[in-house]
């Protein structure tokens, strides 16, 4: 994935924009129905920012730009959460131009810590963490078992997908969905879904570049 962070992020942005309605519908069921709208607006702004940033920047600089742009364009709860996640993921990847397993694991860990701190949330509360934490665990397992970066990403995506399914079975205790109590059961979490969509796009991007 050499020199391709720029394109990977652009691909992630396009997928989010394509899923605008899907994510919004998921949110309308248990939240306030704006997740897809806000995320799409954020990634449209990211696309513009990335164009002016240029394709030759290191991963950390790209991540930082994406994070700052999301913070200042998404709003809602997703803006600070995803914004913080990308900003935190920038630190371990500053000056790096090629994504390796170690860096990817550090980035994912930093992003998750950022989301937990900003959102004061833990796994099991029907949030994006229910996709991201299992994804991280699976990634590390793959890494320990000496699997390739793409294989690790495959494991992470599968775990994130199961995590999204898991959110259907639990009551939301964070965000607006928490007000629904039992009524939130049966619905998948929009934030967990957008997290899974991002990871899946990254995997498909990596596969295509292999």
């Amino acid at each position, binding site marked *: 994935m050499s020199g391709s962070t720029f394109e990977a992020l652009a691909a992630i942005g396009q997928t989010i924009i394509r899923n605008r309605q899907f994510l*919004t519908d998921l949110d*309308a069921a*248990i*939240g*306030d*129905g*704006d997740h897809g*709208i*806000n995320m799409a*607006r954020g990634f449209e702004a990211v696309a513009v920012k990335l164009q002016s940033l240029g394709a030759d920047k290191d991963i950390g600089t790209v991540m930082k730009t994406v994070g700052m742009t999301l*913070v*200042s*364009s*998404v*709003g*809602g*709860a*997703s*803006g*600070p*959460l995803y914004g913080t996640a990308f900003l935190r993921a920038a630190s371990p990847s500053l000056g790096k131009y090629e994504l390796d397993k170690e860096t990817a694991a550090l980035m994912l860990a930093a992003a998750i810590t950022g989301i937990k701190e*900003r*959102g004061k949330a833990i796994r099991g509360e029907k949030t994006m963490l229910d996709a991201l934490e299992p994804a991280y665990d699976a990634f590390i397992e793959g890494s320990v078992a000496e699997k390739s970066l793409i294989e690790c990403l495959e494991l992470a995506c599968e775990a994130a997908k199961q995590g999204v399914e898991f959110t259907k079975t639990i*009551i939301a*205790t*964070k*965000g*607006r969905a*928490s*007000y*629904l*109590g039992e*009524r939130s059961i049966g619905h998948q979490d929009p934030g967990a879904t957008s997290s899974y969509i991002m990871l899946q796009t990254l995997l498909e991007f990596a596969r295509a570049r292999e």
Partner: protein
Amino acid sequence: MKKIINVPEQVVEEMLEGMVSAYPQYLKRVEGFDVLVRANSPVAGKVGLVSGGGSGHEPSHGGFVGRGMLDGAVAGAVFTSPTPDQVYEAIKAVDSGNGVLLVIKNYSGDVMNFDMAMEMAAGEGISVDKVIVDDDVAVENSTWTIGRRGIAGTVFVHKIAGAKAETGAALPEVKAVAEKVIANVRSMGMALDSCTVPAAGKPSFVLEENEIEIGMGIHGEPGTHRETLRSADEITDHLVGKILADMPLNKGEEVAVLVNGLGATPLMELFVVNRKVAEILKNKGVSTVKTYVGNYMTSLEMAGFSVTILKLDSELKELLFAQADTPALVQF
């Protein structure tokens, strides 16, 4: 979707332009940001009061910018918390050196974005503090939720903390009185019909002809339960009952009442509701010293209303009756 708009993406921008055109004596725009501040900001010698949130709650929050209430209001996208950079601009624009108090409604997004703005302002040496309004008794405040939502009771926080700030009180004193309001204000609402976020293009939820939603939030988020439409008196009795169960009132106590329309409810119906609210309070021997009826914290074109009761002591009463001169609330 049937709305008087040009393009959904421009609704907030064009609304802000329209507000500034209507009320230049009260408001000015912070150039390049979705922030309205008093025309004479920053006001020397006083704490700045900043509120805000998603748009779609008009006249909240820009309508309450003016003498005796807010110094600045930040407008996010419809029903979406404003971003930290916008809130930060509002803080900078209203700070006269006496510090700034942020009035935040208790939603995850609002709290996180305003928190980030506070961190940015603190980094610049501006003294900033915050209060979080959580007046909605519909949702239980338990370890299983993020706590109660902030709804129409927020207007009382703007009014009373605004009056306090106008006296030249210091930031901790303004914060203390805002917290006193929050501790003594309760609200609950209901909806007859949904609303449509312009960018979404379709209603946030659908209610059948005879169905109402109890405990609605102000963002089209579902309430606690649905039931069959009942009479105004029965619905009001239920909402006020929930409020009084949470904040018991004793004979002889004084309160202020806000019967708030959510956007599409005729004043006629709001007055019918207020008739019942007044009756219930009177029967309890509670004295209603001030009543507001109208659209203060709306939810686009949602049909429905909320009732807010604020328990008063002598300090809160004096500040509630103090003068205010804003686009949406003038009191002499």
